[in-house]
Protein backbone atom coordinates (compact mmCIF):
# COMPACT_ATOMS: atom_id res chain seq x y z
CA UNK A 1 0.00 0.00 0.00
CA UNK A 2 1.44 3.36 -1.02
CA UNK A 3 1.43 6.29 1.41
CA UNK A 4 -1.32 7.98 -0.61
CA UNK A 5 -3.46 4.85 -0.45
CA UNK A 6 -2.80 4.66 3.27
CA UNK A 7 -3.92 8.27 3.69
CA UNK A 8 -7.08 7.70 1.65
CA UNK A 9 -7.81 4.58 3.68
CA UNK A 10 -7.43 6.62 6.86
CA UNK A 11 -9.80 9.28 5.51
CA UNK A 12 -12.41 6.69 4.61
CA UNK A 13 -12.22 4.88 7.93
CA UNK A 14 -12.09 8.04 10.04
CA UNK A 15 -14.78 8.10 12.68
CA UNK A 16 -17.20 10.99 12.91
CA UNK A 17 -16.77 11.20 16.70
CA UNK A 18 -13.04 11.73 16.35
CA UNK A 19 -13.75 14.77 14.21
CA UNK A 20 -16.29 16.05 16.74
CA UNK A 21 -13.74 15.50 19.50
CA UNK A 22 -11.18 17.55 17.59
CA UNK A 23 -13.67 20.37 17.12
CA UNK A 24 -14.57 20.38 20.81
CA UNK A 25 -10.92 20.40 21.86
CA UNK A 26 -10.22 23.22 19.41
CA UNK A 27 -13.14 25.24 20.85
CA UNK A 28 -11.88 24.61 24.39
CA UNK A 29 -8.40 25.68 23.32
CA UNK A 30 -9.87 28.93 22.05
CA UNK A 31 -11.67 29.36 25.37
CA UNK A 32 -8.35 28.90 27.19
CA UNK A 33 -6.87 31.76 25.16
CA UNK A 34 -9.95 33.85 25.91
CA UNK A 35 -9.71 33.08 29.68
CA UNK A 36 -6.07 34.21 29.62
CA UNK A 37 -7.09 37.41 27.81
CA UNK A 38 -9.71 38.04 30.48
CA UNK A 39 -7.00 37.93 33.15
CA UNK A 40 -4.99 40.49 31.20
CA UNK A 41 -8.11 42.60 30.79
CA UNK A 42 -8.84 42.46 34.53
CA UNK A 43 -5.24 43.48 35.28
CA UNK A 44 -5.54 46.43 32.93
CA UNK A 45 -8.87 47.45 34.45
CA UNK A 46 -7.57 47.10 38.01
CA UNK A 47 -4.56 49.24 37.15
CA UNK A 48 -6.83 51.93 35.75
CA UNK A 49 -9.25 51.97 38.69
CA UNK A 50 -7.89 50.68 41.98
CA UNK A 51 -10.55 49.79 44.51
CA UNK A 52 -11.39 47.40 47.31
CA UNK A 53 -13.31 45.02 45.04
CA UNK A 54 -10.41 44.38 42.65
CA UNK A 55 -9.01 41.35 44.49
CA UNK A 56 -12.23 39.25 44.31
CA UNK A 57 -12.49 40.14 40.60
CA UNK A 58 -8.92 38.96 39.98
CA UNK A 59 -9.65 35.72 41.86
CA UNK A 60 -12.74 35.09 39.69
CA UNK A 61 -10.68 35.68 36.53
CA UNK A 62 -8.07 33.12 37.66
CA UNK A 63 -10.80 30.65 38.67
CA UNK A 64 -12.26 31.00 35.18
CA UNK A 65 -8.90 30.04 33.67
CA UNK A 66 -8.52 27.14 36.12
CA UNK A 67 -12.00 25.86 35.24
CA UNK A 68 -11.21 26.12 31.53
CA UNK A 69 -8.00 24.08 32.04
CA UNK A 70 -9.89 21.44 34.06
CA UNK A 71 -12.63 21.11 31.44
CA UNK A 72 -9.99 20.84 28.70
CA UNK A 73 -8.16 18.04 30.54
CA UNK A 74 -11.46 16.32 31.38
CA UNK A 75 -12.51 16.42 27.71
CA UNK A 76 -9.13 15.08 26.63
CA UNK A 77 -9.56 12.09 28.94
CA UNK A 78 -13.27 11.39 28.53
CA UNK A 79 -13.80 11.91 24.79
Amino acid at each position, binding site marked *: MTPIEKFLDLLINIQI*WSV*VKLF*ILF*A*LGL*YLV*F*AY*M*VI*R*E*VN*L*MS*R*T*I*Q*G*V*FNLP*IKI*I*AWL*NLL*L*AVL*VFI*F*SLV*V*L
Partner: protein
Amino acid sequence: MPDIYIASPKKRITRESKEIIKKVGVKKTRNPLASFVALPDGVEFETQEKEEKIILLLRRHWVTNIGWFLMAVLMIYVPFILKIVPLLDFLPSRFRLVLVMMWYLITLAFIFEEFLIWFFNVYLVTDERIIDVDFISLAYRRITDAQIEKIQDITYQTGGLLKSIFDYGDIYIQTAAEKQRIDFESVPSPDKVVKVLNQLIIQEQQEKIEGRVR
Protein backbone atom coordinates in the same frame (compact mmCIF):
# COMPACT_ATOMS: atom_id res chain seq x y z
CA MET B 1 -1.71 89.67 61.08
CA PRO B 2 0.07 86.41 60.16
CA ASP B 3 -1.96 83.22 59.85
CA ILE B 4 -1.71 81.05 62.97
CA TYR B 5 -2.86 77.86 61.24
CA ILE B 6 -2.91 77.07 57.55
CA ALA B 7 -4.50 73.73 56.60
CA SER B 8 -2.52 71.52 54.25
CA PRO B 9 -3.87 71.52 50.69
CA LYS B 10 -5.03 67.89 51.02
CA LYS B 11 -6.99 68.60 54.22
CA ARG B 12 -8.50 71.73 52.67
CA ILE B 13 -9.58 69.82 49.56
CA THR B 14 -11.15 67.06 51.68
CA ARG B 15 -13.01 69.63 53.77
CA GLU B 16 -14.24 71.51 50.72
CA SER B 17 -15.31 68.28 49.01
CA LYS B 18 -17.26 67.21 52.08
CA GLU B 19 -18.95 70.61 52.17
CA ILE B 20 -20.06 70.26 48.54
CA ILE B 21 -21.43 66.76 49.12
CA LYS B 22 -23.28 67.96 52.23
CA LYS B 23 -24.68 70.98 50.40
CA VAL B 24 -26.04 68.86 47.56
CA GLY B 25 -27.47 66.30 49.98
CA VAL B 26 -25.65 63.18 48.79
CA LYS B 27 -25.45 60.24 51.21
CA LYS B 28 -22.15 58.38 51.62
CA THR B 29 -22.04 54.65 50.99
CA ARG B 30 -19.43 51.99 51.59
CA ASN B 31 -20.94 49.56 49.10
CA PRO B 32 -18.21 48.79 46.50
CA LEU B 33 -20.89 47.85 43.97
CA ALA B 34 -22.87 51.08 44.27
CA SER B 35 -23.57 53.14 41.15
CA PHE B 36 -23.35 56.46 42.93
CA VAL B 37 -20.51 56.84 45.41
CA ALA B 38 -19.63 60.13 47.03
CA LEU B 39 -16.07 60.56 48.31
CA PRO B 40 -15.22 56.87 47.78
CA ASP B 41 -12.80 55.33 50.29
CA GLY B 42 -9.88 53.33 48.96
CA VAL B 43 -10.50 54.14 45.31
CA GLU B 44 -7.76 55.59 43.14
CA PHE B 45 -7.23 55.89 39.43
CA GLU B 46 -4.15 55.62 37.25
CA THR B 47 -3.71 59.26 36.30
CA GLN B 48 -4.69 60.68 39.68
CA GLU B 49 -2.51 63.51 40.92
CA LYS B 50 -1.15 63.62 44.45
CA GLU B 51 -3.60 66.17 45.82
CA GLU B 52 -6.52 65.26 43.60
CA LYS B 53 -9.60 64.02 45.41
CA ILE B 54 -12.37 61.88 43.90
CA ILE B 55 -15.68 63.48 44.77
CA LEU B 56 -18.05 61.26 42.81
CA LEU B 57 -17.66 57.81 41.33
CA LEU B 58 -20.52 56.95 39.00
CA ARG B 59 -21.54 53.87 37.07
CA ARG B 60 -24.56 53.06 34.97
CA HIS B 61 -27.62 52.52 37.19
CA TRP B 62 -27.98 48.85 38.24
CA VAL B 63 -31.34 48.67 36.43
CA THR B 64 -29.47 48.87 33.12
CA ASN B 65 -28.04 45.42 33.94
CA ILE B 66 -31.44 43.71 33.90
CA GLY B 67 -31.22 42.79 30.20
CA TRP B 68 -28.02 40.75 30.44
CA PHE B 69 -29.01 39.42 33.86
CA LEU B 70 -32.21 37.87 32.44
CA MET B 71 -30.21 36.54 29.51
CA ALA B 72 -27.77 34.91 31.96
CA VAL B 73 -30.64 33.27 33.90
CA LEU B 74 -32.00 31.91 30.62
CA MET B 75 -28.54 30.60 29.66
CA ILE B 76 -28.25 28.81 33.02
CA TYR B 77 -31.54 26.99 32.36
CA VAL B 78 -30.81 25.98 28.75
CA PRO B 79 -29.34 22.53 29.66
CA PHE B 80 -32.45 21.81 31.77
CA ILE B 81 -34.66 22.74 28.82
CA LEU B 82 -32.64 20.32 26.69
CA LYS B 83 -33.58 17.56 29.14
CA ILE B 84 -37.25 18.20 28.38
CA VAL B 85 -36.72 18.76 24.65
CA PRO B 86 -34.10 16.13 23.76
CA LEU B 87 -32.37 17.85 20.87
CA LEU B 88 -28.92 16.46 21.66
CA ASP B 89 -29.95 12.86 22.33
CA PHE B 90 -28.23 11.63 19.17
CA LEU B 91 -24.88 12.44 20.84
CA PRO B 92 -23.10 9.90 23.07
CA SER B 93 -23.52 10.79 26.77
CA ARG B 94 -19.84 11.74 27.22
CA PHE B 95 -20.13 14.32 24.42
CA ARG B 96 -23.33 15.71 25.95
CA LEU B 97 -21.59 16.07 29.31
CA VAL B 98 -18.65 17.97 27.79
CA LEU B 99 -21.00 20.21 25.77
CA VAL B 100 -22.96 21.10 28.93
CA MET B 101 -19.67 21.95 30.68
CA MET B 102 -18.65 24.12 27.72
CA TRP B 103 -22.04 25.83 27.81
CA TYR B 104 -21.59 26.73 31.47
CA LEU B 105 -18.08 28.03 30.78
CA ILE B 106 -19.52 30.31 28.11
CA THR B 107 -22.29 31.39 30.49
CA LEU B 108 -19.72 32.20 33.18
CA ALA B 109 -17.65 34.18 30.68
CA PHE B 110 -20.74 36.09 29.52
CA ILE B 111 -21.77 37.02 33.08
CA PHE B 112 -18.23 37.96 34.08
CA GLU B 113 -17.62 40.09 30.97
CA GLU B 114 -20.92 41.97 31.37
CA PHE B 115 -20.16 42.57 35.04
CA LEU B 116 -16.62 43.81 34.25
CA ILE B 117 -17.92 46.23 31.63
CA TRP B 118 -20.46 47.62 34.09
CA PHE B 119 -18.06 47.75 37.04
CA PHE B 120 -15.06 49.33 35.36
CA ASN B 121 -16.77 51.72 32.95
CA VAL B 122 -16.92 54.56 35.41
CA TYR B 123 -17.35 58.29 35.42
CA LEU B 124 -15.24 60.19 37.92
CA VAL B 125 -15.70 63.69 39.20
CA THR B 126 -12.67 64.97 41.06
CA ASP B 127 -12.03 68.41 42.51
CA GLU B 128 -10.02 69.21 39.36
CA ARG B 129 -11.61 67.38 36.44
CA ILE B 130 -14.19 64.99 35.08
CA ILE B 131 -13.06 61.64 33.70
CA ASP B 132 -14.86 59.11 31.52
CA VAL B 133 -13.28 55.63 31.62
CA ASP B 134 -14.44 53.31 28.82
CA PHE B 135 -13.35 49.72 28.29
CA ILE B 136 -14.46 48.91 24.79
CA SER B 137 -13.12 45.43 24.18
CA LEU B 138 -10.86 42.85 25.83
CA ALA B 139 -7.70 44.93 25.75
CA TYR B 140 -8.80 48.37 24.62
CA ARG B 141 -9.61 51.30 26.85
CA ARG B 142 -10.40 54.95 26.29
CA ILE B 143 -10.00 57.54 29.01
CA THR B 144 -11.31 61.03 28.39
CA ASP B 145 -10.94 63.87 30.82
CA ALA B 146 -11.59 67.59 30.99
CA GLN B 147 -10.68 70.19 33.57
CA ILE B 148 -13.61 71.53 35.62
CA GLU B 149 -12.69 75.07 34.54
CA LYS B 150 -13.15 74.03 30.91
CA ILE B 151 -16.76 72.96 31.38
CA GLN B 152 -18.97 75.26 29.35
CA ASP B 153 -22.41 73.75 29.52
CA ILE B 154 -24.12 70.91 31.36
CA THR B 155 -27.37 69.33 30.21
CA TYR B 156 -29.12 66.35 31.73
CA GLN B 157 -31.90 64.27 30.40
CA THR B 158 -34.28 61.84 32.05
CA GLY B 159 -37.46 60.40 30.69
CA GLY B 160 -39.21 57.17 29.95
CA LEU B 161 -40.76 54.78 32.42
CA LEU B 162 -37.66 53.09 33.86
CA LYS B 163 -35.60 56.27 34.08
CA SER B 164 -38.39 58.08 35.90
CA ILE B 165 -39.10 55.23 38.32
CA PHE B 166 -35.46 54.56 39.19
CA ASP B 167 -34.25 58.16 38.91
CA TYR B 168 -31.43 57.89 36.43
CA GLY B 169 -30.49 59.66 33.21
CA ASP B 170 -27.83 60.98 30.88
CA ILE B 171 -25.64 64.01 31.46
CA TYR B 172 -24.04 65.81 28.53
CA ILE B 173 -21.08 68.00 29.43
CA GLN B 174 -19.86 70.45 26.84
CA THR B 175 -16.24 71.39 27.33
CA ALA B 176 -13.57 73.57 25.80
CA ALA B 177 -11.12 70.67 26.07
CA GLU B 178 -9.82 68.56 23.20
CA LYS B 179 -12.86 66.29 23.36
CA GLN B 180 -15.73 68.70 23.21
CA ARG B 181 -18.40 66.58 24.81
CA ILE B 182 -18.25 64.07 27.64
CA ASP B 183 -21.38 62.02 28.29
CA PHE B 184 -22.28 60.36 31.56
CA GLU B 185 -24.79 57.74 30.46
CA SER B 186 -27.58 56.28 32.63
CA VAL B 187 -26.14 57.58 35.90
CA PRO B 188 -28.26 57.65 39.07
CA SER B 189 -29.57 61.00 40.40
CA PRO B 190 -28.35 63.14 37.47
CA ASP B 191 -29.75 66.27 39.14
CA LYS B 192 -27.40 65.78 42.10
CA VAL B 193 -24.43 65.15 39.81
CA VAL B 194 -25.17 68.41 37.98
CA LYS B 195 -25.43 70.25 41.30
CA VAL B 196 -22.04 68.88 42.40
CA LEU B 197 -20.52 69.92 39.06
CA ASN B 198 -21.99 73.41 39.39
CA GLN B 199 -20.60 73.71 42.91
CA LEU B 200 -17.18 72.64 41.65
CA ILE B 201 -17.29 75.21 38.86
CA ILE B 202 -18.10 77.93 41.41
CA GLN B 203 -15.29 76.67 43.66
CA GLU B 204 -12.85 76.66 40.75
CA GLN B 205 -13.77 80.26 39.91
CA GLN B 206 -13.32 81.20 43.57
CA GLU B 207 -9.88 79.59 43.61
CA LYS B 208 -8.92 81.52 40.50
CA ILE B 209 -9.93 84.81 42.12
CA GLU B 210 -8.01 83.93 45.29
CA GLY B 211 -4.99 82.76 43.28
CA ARG B 212 -5.11 79.20 44.66
CA VAL B 213 -5.14 77.49 41.28
CA ARG B 214 -3.06 74.28 41.22
